[in-house]
């Protein structure tokens, strides 16, 4: 099963600040350990929301709004995708991430085709 571990914005990520070198290095080691164990499928950081946009869908039309989205409490800064045998294994890896100070990483299971009802699999041609 696959999990997406979502890292919230914070620590200057929205201001485009780089993390301190020691945190960058700790993150490199953490990523290296997950890669070596064969659980890391991807790890990405996102540019600040100031360089992004939001599209809203309503009544058949779309409205585009440029970032930053300062009002949002749920902005993300990056994510990992892990391939593991259980939720507990994903949690065990995440506990080793080099964070502190109240950071909350959200762990969401990725929907695999097999999780979906047959009529949905049919709709996507699987």
């Amino acid at each position, binding site marked *: 099963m696959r999990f997406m571990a979502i890292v919230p914005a914070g620590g200057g990520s929205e201001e485009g600040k780089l993390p301190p070198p020691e945190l960058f290095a700790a993150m490199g080691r953490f990523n290296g350990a997950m890669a070596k164990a064969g659980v890391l499928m991807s790890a990405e950081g*996102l540019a600040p929301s100031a360089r992004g946009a939001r599209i809203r869908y309503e009544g058949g039309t779309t409205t585009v709004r440029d970032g930053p989205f300062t009002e949002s409490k749920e902005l993300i800064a990056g994510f990992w995708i892990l391939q593991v045998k259980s939720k507990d294994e994903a949690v065990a890896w995440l506990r080793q991430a080099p*964070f502190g100070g109240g*950071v909350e*990483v959200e762990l969401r299971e990725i*929907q695999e085709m097999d999780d*979906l009802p047959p009529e949905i699999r049919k709709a996507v041609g699987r």
Partner: protein
Amino acid sequence: MRFMMLVIPKGYEKAGAGFAPPVELVARMAKFNESLTKAGVLLALDGLHPPAVSQRVVFGGGRPKVVDGPFAEAREVIGGYWMIQVKSREEALEWARRAPMLDGDQIEVRQVQEMSDFPPEVQQAARGGS
């Protein structure tokens, strides 16, 4: 350049464990995905299970705590994403506009940071070098 199109479905923060999207929407989504593939821009896509069956790992002093969802204070929840490779932000926005969403849904378009955007010493640290 790579962009994430993060899907924020209206009300997904309240979705139950057995949530499944309407079949008709899934069929339109499959067509949209096919157009992304045909254009050669699609790198990855996934749907995420609702927060009701998710966890948060909270880092503080000592051993990180694990909290089970749903998360009462959550207002905007990611339901899935596409990662696309395009030539400009405008191209990314154009694709996002064409996505078959429901009323009140949102897509947040965010550029993905490439290693080459960082200074050399940061790149080296990220690779685990000293």
